[in-house]
């Protein structure tokens, strides 16, 4: 058995279900819970190279989608554009939407040797409120997939490569998924080593028999308030997509749990566009390092946040601390003001026709109109010395340039070969 979950401090109330735990994965650092499950795309926490992840962050666990290459889908997947079938799951790969044969996913278990593998379920992300017919199918297929999953995983066990199996609760009402839940109970808590929820509401549907297992949230909290709610709902390991989203929006997260001041209506983050700092410079100059530094910072803030949560639970002050936090901080993250580095990379997987979202700032003296920028105020007037007739402009090689270091254009032909 490659994982163990110790409950360090059990739940004391049914209304506020927080607890302390320790997840032990063989050969890895122990993970005290509640804790963060960082989200990766293509195996990378966005913008962070592995050396930085190791040296500059306290991230202990990373979730990767099989479509990038370990849960079957990313935690915040691109919506499916085709329905799943009885034997396949529609996913979005680096090459576009594909049908992933469940058997192939299961074969990959043996090869990619994750610490933990999440059982595939028939959820079509992006399609809400399935009809009655569709709901039946979800339950039927998910149950069938779970059987294949179990068989496949038991085969790897003989090779001593066995990852821990985490199994989702379907985002449906308990009565509707009754056959699925019954099957889970049949399979039992010696095979199943963790429970995953894709929807906060599903936490109430976790069968009693699995309450000793780590409860993993792959839902989409938008704020630290949402994360606290998930802790109250009893989840132990929590994914938080808002961290990367904030970094990419140029927001430095800024909150403490428990609250450190008596002020009210504190902002949950600082819009770095309003700060004079290196990061502000990098954002304004559209340099990729801005994302790197914000990711390091924001993960650090969330790491401290979870630390605070655990200490608060240990002290038995959690409920009061949550209340105080709720009153002290604004309910949403700040709204993104400026333009970050060019949207590229995994964002572009939304479609081959994804366009450049930022405009090239450098213009030829020529015809058309000048670039419009929303950071005019931060701009220096230092170079404006004398008046010359203004001519209108056109972008330099807009299709060739990949980023904003336009210097040394002469080497372009080689750079592109």
């Amino acid at each position: 058995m490659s994982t163990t979950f110790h409950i360090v401090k059990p739940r004391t109330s049914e209304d506020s279900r927080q607890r302390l735990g320790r997840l032990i994965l063989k050969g890895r650092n122990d993970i005290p819970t509640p804790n963060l499950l960082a989200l990766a795309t293509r195996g990378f926490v966005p913008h962070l190279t592995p050396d930085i992840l190791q040296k500059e962050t306290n991230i202990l666990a990373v979730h990767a989608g099989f479509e990038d290459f370990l849960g079957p889908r990313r935690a915040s997947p691109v919506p499916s554009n085709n329905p799943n079938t009885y034997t396949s799951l529609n996913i979005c790969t680096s090459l576009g939407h594909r049908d992933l044969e469940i058997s192939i996913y299961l074969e990959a278990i043996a090869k990619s040797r994750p610490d933990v593998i999440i059982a595939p379920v028939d959820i079509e992300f992006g399609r809400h409120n399935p009809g009655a017919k569709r709901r039946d199918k979800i339950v039927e297929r998910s149950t069938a997939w779970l059987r294949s999953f179990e068989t496949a995983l038991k085969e790897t066990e003989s090779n001593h490569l066995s990852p821990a199996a985490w199994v989702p609760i379907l985002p449906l009402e308990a009565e509707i998924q009754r056959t699925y839940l019954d099957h889970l109970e049949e399979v039992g808590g010696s095979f199943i080593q963790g429970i995953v929820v894709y929807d906060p509401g599903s936490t109430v549907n976790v069968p009693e028999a699995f309450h000793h297992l780590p409860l993993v949230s792959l839902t989409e909290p938008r704020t630290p308030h949402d994360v606290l709610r998930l802790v109250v709902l009893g989840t132990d390991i929590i994914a938080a997509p808002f961290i990367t989203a904030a970094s990419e929006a140029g927001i430095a997260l800024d909150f403490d749990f428990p609250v450190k001041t008596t002020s009210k209506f504190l902002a949950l983050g600082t819009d770095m566009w309003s700060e004079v700092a290196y990061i502000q410079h990098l954002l304004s100059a559209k340099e990729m390092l801005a994302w790197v530094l914000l990711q390091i910072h924001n993960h650090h803030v969330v790491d401290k946040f979870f630390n605070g949560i655990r200490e608060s639970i240990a002290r038995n002050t959690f409920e009061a601390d949550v209340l105080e936090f709720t009153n002290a901080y604004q309910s949403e993250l700040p709204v993104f003001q400026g333009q970050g580095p060019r949207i590229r990379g995994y964002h572009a997987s939304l479609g081959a026709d994804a366009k450049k979202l930022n405009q090239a700032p450098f213009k030829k003296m020529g015809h058309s109109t000048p670039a419009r920028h929303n950071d005019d105020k931060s701009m220096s007037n230092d170079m404006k010395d004398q008046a010359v007739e203004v001519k209108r402009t056109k972008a330099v090689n807009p299709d060739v340039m990949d980023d904003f270091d336009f210097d040394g254009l002469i080497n372009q032909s080689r750079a592109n070969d």
Partner: protein
Amino acid sequence: MSNKFTSPALTFEIVGKCSTTRARASILSLPHGPVQLPIFQPVATQASLKGLTPAQLAQTGCNLCLNNTYHLGLKPGQKTLDAIGGAHKLQGWKGNILTDSGGFQMVSLLELATVTEDGVRFLSPHDGSPMLLTPEHSISLQNSIGSDIMMQLDDVIATTSPDHARIEEAMYRSIRWLDRCIAAHKKPESQNLFCIIQGGLDLRLRETCTREMVKRNTPGIAIGGLSGGEAKDAYCQTCTGLLPDAKPRYVMGVGYPEDLVVSVALGADMFDCVWPTRTARFGNAITSDGVLNLRSARFSSDFSPIDTLCKCLCCRSIEDNDGLGVTKALVHSIANKETAGAHLLSIHNVHYLLNLMHQVRQAIVQDEYPHFLKRYFKQIYKTKDKYPTWAVTALKGVGVDLLTDEDL
């Protein structure tokens, strides 16, 4: 002939010379530490090297990098630079910084309307309003940046320009602008101003320019306007003959491996180029087998390191001093999709060129540079018929015949 030169903010000392070519190995001591020459300087255009943290940059072995005055003058701007105390503080960089004058940027970025005796007129990339960059203003900005090495503003024109009168005008104007830059320079005790010898390829003009600029006795000499690449033959003939021995020689905008090793043989010490980091963003790895585009399908299941001979953070195995063990297949899967992919390749590519120059330096110190050159070209090109003619010709000019095998 002296092997050592000292000025208020710099000491240059030659520690080894090739007995065949004009290659030298030297130590350039700058305000933020000593630099071993020959050197390749990566370009951190806007005080950031394409997503690498200053610590990651230092780890590649780099202690001299380039910032662009034009970009920093616009963002964060001179006031902010003055308030923060310069570009070293802005980016948390403890190594040395070299800045260009800002003029070249405008020629390459903006189709210039006018260069007048006052300076370079251009339109703001922000709002289209007119701006003027004068020699005085360029120096003032570079003083605010606090670069260890600053460049004069020069009248840059393409080396291939057919307009002889315009080339001559640009050359004389650049000399006059050098005088204005020297006069405007407020911190000669802590910052070094280099002249730029024009890359116009008329030998007579170049000689005049060199003589006049050498007279001004700047602590170092740059050779500009050569990065076009199409004029390598001519550049090689006129490169370093007239220059004083005991001063650092910086060839601007040159960065392909074969250009570097040939230029060193011709007597150059310093280089810079955006190519290694830019090309990383297109998935290209500079390796001892030449440049590989890792986006190519043939690398999709190649689980060897980016370059088996490389000892950079990425290429070292996890067992080897905490390397990352990055494989070609991994880069293939994330190239152009994850910014981290570009960061990893940038780390490798910059390390490759820094290490290449380190090996070059060792070969010079051991007086084995001709042998090094032959081995290098053989490794990159495999067969002699693929050697570029300009390189063969240039090296013949300094006593190395790449086409013979003796000495290999």
